């Protein structure tokens, strides 16, 4: 069980080489195969997630949730996707057409790129980058541009307002997000995600860095534009913010990307704070899936309980609360590490 996927990869490589292919090209084909798998997994995941989100929301609100298609309405999302795919692609006449068209594509590309460094199990990262965590943060910051493009391209005041808000929000929250992760990096002494997972062999970092976990969680919610920080969407105020003018599959791409980001950030949280793929009995890839889904459930729980924060409160929460807290956390972590060293641990 543990090595299913690795074995498949090995078998594929050796088979390609045995066909007379140069090992380099075999690697390239394998890489393409891995990415295809990742995109497939993401799409599947999103299908499950949207269903799960609606179901969880339904249960919280004492409703049934989707229950028509398939067992427990499981195929509802597939039907929705088919509907969105067949819908007319409406591009309003006054938009900046090029930007309007490519914004959702860029958004989904950036979201998928996040998965390159996530260890999906033991030795199961696509690229075992030694600056993996830094890669995650910097690539994640690119999605602001995509939202800005969507908002500007739509040529709609609501959209632009939503885009401006989300960009301001995401840039502000990148700082506490990165700072809260520094504590983890300091303890493990590496930016490599696999190394960080290894470092949690004995003790999960959520216990060593509870404050960092909370600040990370809040900042991540804001980075993901999820409730209660869903400023760019804000259906009740901005009618849908940056996505107001989008419809059909372009709109669906945005949502696909949002959920892709959700999975990625949840997986990152599981990797950094919940011991990643480590766990007894079950294979490593199953552990990370379980932990990711646990974190995503918490995200959903928050979204369906809280009202939306006001924009200026949101900004002051980042600058006046989260950043000082995470800075203090870094200082204390540094001091703690020194003390432990001094005590000879």
């Amino acid at each position, binding site marked *: 069980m543990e090595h299913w996927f690795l074995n498949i990869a090995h078998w594929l490589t050796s088979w390609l080489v045995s066909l007379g292919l140069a090992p380099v090209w075999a690697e390239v084909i394998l890489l393409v195969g891995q990415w295809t798998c990742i995109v497939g997994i993401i799409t599947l995941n999103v299908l499950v997630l949207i269903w799960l989100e609606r179901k969880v*929301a339904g249960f*919280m*609100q*004492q*409703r049934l949730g989707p229950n028509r298609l398939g067992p427990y309405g499981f195929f509802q999302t597939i039907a929705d996707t088919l509907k969105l795919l067949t819908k007319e692609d409406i591009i309003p006449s006054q938009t900046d057409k090029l930007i309007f068209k490519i914004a959702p594509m860029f958004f989904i590309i950036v979201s998928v790129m996040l998965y390159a460094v996530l260890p999906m199990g033991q030795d199961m990262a696509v690229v075992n980058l030694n600056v993996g965590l830094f890669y995650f943060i910097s690539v994640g910051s690119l999605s602001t541009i995509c939202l800005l493009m969507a908002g500007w391209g739509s040529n709609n*005041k*609501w959209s632009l*307002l939503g885009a401006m808000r989300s960009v301001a929000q995401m840039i502000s929250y990148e700082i506490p997000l990165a700072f809260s992760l520094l504590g983890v990096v300091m303890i493990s002494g590496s930016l490599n995600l696999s190394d960080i997972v290894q470092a949690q062999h004995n003790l999960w970092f959520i216990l060593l860095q509870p404050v960092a976990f909370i600040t990370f969680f809040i900042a991540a919610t804001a980075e993901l534009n999820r*409730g*209660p920080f*869903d400023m760019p969407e*804000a*259906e*009740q*105020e901005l*009618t849908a913010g940056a996505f107001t003018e989008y419809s059909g599959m372009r709109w669906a791409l945005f949502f696909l990307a949002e959920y892709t980001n959700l999975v990625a950030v949840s997986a990152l949280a599981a990797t950094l704070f919940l011991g990643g793929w480590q766990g007894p009995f079950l294979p490593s890839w199953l552990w990370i899936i379980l932990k990711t889904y646990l974190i995503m459930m918490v995200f959903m729980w928050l979204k*369906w*309980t*809280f*009202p*939306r*924060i*006001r*924009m*200026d*409160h949101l900004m002051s929460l980042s600058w006046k609360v989260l950043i000082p807290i995470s800075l203090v956390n870094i200082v204390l972590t540094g001091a703690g590490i020194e003390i432990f060293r001094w005590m000879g641990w």
Partner: protein
Amino acid sequence: MFTTDIYTINIGPQHPSTHGGLHVEALMDGEVVKDAIVHLGYVHRSMEKIAESRTYTQFIPYTSRLDYLATHLPTLGYVQAVEKLMGVEVPERAEYIRVILGELSRIASHMLFVGSLAIDLGATTGLIYCLRDRERIMDMFEMSSGQRLLASYMRIGGVIQDLPEEFFPAVDRFLNDLHGMIEEYNGLITGNEILQARCKGIGILSPEEAIAYGVTGPNLRASGVLYDLRKADPYGIYERFEFEIPTGQHGDCLDRLIVRIKEIEQSGYIIRQALKKMPTGEVRGKVPKLLKPEKGKEVYHRIESAKGELGFYLVSDGTEKPFRVHVRAPSFVNLMILPLISRGGKLQDIIANIATLDPVLGESDR
């Protein structure tokens, strides 16, 4: 040194948070509101003109469609106005039934207010819980009149028919659970720090301004003015009940929410008293089939509706149809302070302000 441009953003008439066809033209400087202009009339159905071509009895079903969230209250106001015009006596039991259903309507309206405030601020689940509890009131309306939303249960001189047997245990159960419901709203909605941050100090309406603009109802009481027509100018049998009038101190959005939640509780007390005191007997007084009031007689009758002072002004010309009907709609008057309380706030505050003013566009546009 620097100057910024003011731009216009149109909230509505097609917007999720305007509670119907309301159009607010917001003049913005960045996220700060410089002015908010309210445009009305998108739900205008010429109710007052319709009244002139209907008999006094025939206009009753239309009145429910004014404030459809508190269906019995506008109907009550209208039939009482006609009764005043004709000098009709209403049987005791009918009066008590009217109080019970009227207060239930008030609770239903306020519950929807709490829920819609929650969803306007982004808390979807809060709305669902409020609707869930409101549904029980709707069931009671269905028991009594057969209609859930637009009951038209009141008639000139009483009500259609007596309350059914199953109504009393249902209302009893509801009143027993009412405290738990309010606790839940307080836990999920009022007590939530995010909501408090968004409502506290937002949309402040001073008592002087409120009186000057003619604001009535919970919005006025949230500003600290102790004025409730049920006490100030009792109609029907309201002087027989003991209840408190909750008031706020700051006149901000949070006070408007808290006052309404407290009013739900007070309405519950009134219903309990009414159930206890209710006599048996007729529910429909002696009323001629064709109502022809004296020529030239006019009457103004006002009640405390869920939204504020709801007045009906009737002028008779001696025929079976009224010469003129005017509705003093509290939603309309209350909406007029939206620019006043929104100025200087943020864009998101307009949404909170609209939600806490609790306008029903069917009533304000008529």
